[in-house]
């Protein structure tokens, strides 16, 4: 299954890559591949902006605006003027719904 194309905030700087392969390990959608001892972005439209690659790249070669792809969280963020956050799990959480 694929989501909207051409929207991801994923940016990758191959210059900084040491070829450790962590990004290929943590990406749940196989966006990164190892090619000639460097990571390469394969199918970037599969990126869901979870942030695992950037968090685990010790060399700062990857940046992505991580966040939840959740309409209800984004609408809540728009109303409260804050960042989109899932309503699940907060200390004041009373919402019976939610993703998790």
């Amino acid at each position: 299954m694929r989501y909207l194309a051409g929207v991801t905030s994923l940016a990758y700087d191959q210059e900084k890559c040491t070829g450790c392969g962590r990004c290929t390990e943590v990406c749940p959608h196989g966006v990164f591949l190892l090619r000639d001892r460097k990571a390469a972005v394969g199918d970037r439209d599969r990126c869901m902006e979870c942030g695992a690659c950037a968090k685990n790249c010790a060399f700062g070669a990857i940046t992505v605006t991580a966040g939840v792809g959740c309409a209800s969280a984004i609408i809540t963020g728009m109303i409260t003027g804050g960042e989109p956050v899932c309503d699940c799990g907060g200390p004041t959480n009373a919402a019976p719904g939610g993703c998790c």
Partner: protein
Amino acid sequence: MNEARISAPVPLAFVKRMPPAFSRGTIDTPAGKVFRITTAWSREDRWGAFQSRVSAYRMTYAVAPGLYAVGDPGPGSPVFVSANYKLSFDVLRRSLDGIDGWVLVLDTKGINVWCAAGKGTFGTDELVRRIRASGLEQVVTHRRVIVPQLGAPGVSAAAVARETGFRVAYGPVEARDLKAYLAAGGKATPAMRTVRFTLADRLVLTPMEVLPAARKYPAFAAAVLLTMGLQPSGILFRDAWQQGWPLLLQGSAAIVAGALITPALLPWVPGRSFAAKGWLVGFVTTWLLARFAAPPAGSTGVLAAAVTLLFFPLLSSYIALQFTGSTTFTSMSGTKKELRLFLPVYLAGAAATVVLLAVIKVKEWQLL
């Protein structure tokens, strides 16, 4: 979760007083006594898992963080890191049948691994804290923890190694692949590294889509009956019901279309936008239903049909868009784009619905 219950090694008094239902005694480690857990699910575990899938029960379904033993582990046994959402913990436990190992449960406030990783509660700081608090370096001689791959958005493997000396090995996405992962010497195949979203995965999530929407249904039904029954002479129950029931039926169908059919048929409904998919499924549903559940024909029949075909597909679309929060592949940038595109459409549709209803009423009452 009571902080006093979190610290490990687990105090003996605690061990004696409240062994969790999934434990079978304790084992001694250099860092103190640790509960040994079973890998089998009891009737209570299954019932708890079911309730977590259909209600807010999940919000308080947690286990005490800390170190647990599974099988007959020793200083060389692998360490599996988990969240303290009990369903996450139970799925891991069940996958470790026949394996001797340690389970290190982080305090994720009762939230599952992936969601907690997104928030950072399943994260570097908590992992470092828990490794230290559990005395893990006394319990095992190796320096390696197996963290579920979906925990990676919250965990910086490099920072954990720097802080604790433990190397993070990312295990497979699904706990059920752990045995194969271990058998392969800690190597996950690309398939084990990829998150899926099968029909079963989607269906198990639909109760939490349908039920919250259904909870708003009584208010919708009251509004429909009130509007339909409203006459210059007062509220007529006969009119309320005669004109209202097709709309009540359409309302429930729109919930089913957006919250159940669209998620179930997700890969097969054309398009990539959830709002568009939901609208399409909603339109087909509304149209099919309108063929035999049409309001009584009259001077306002065409207008009533127009309102029906305008409002209900949009309702289904809006509900389907909420499912973005439950998928394994939607991005924030993509969902924001959908909202920028469709929120104005929903608002315009709602306004047009109100206007059309007013026109119907005016015609019905022959005010013009």
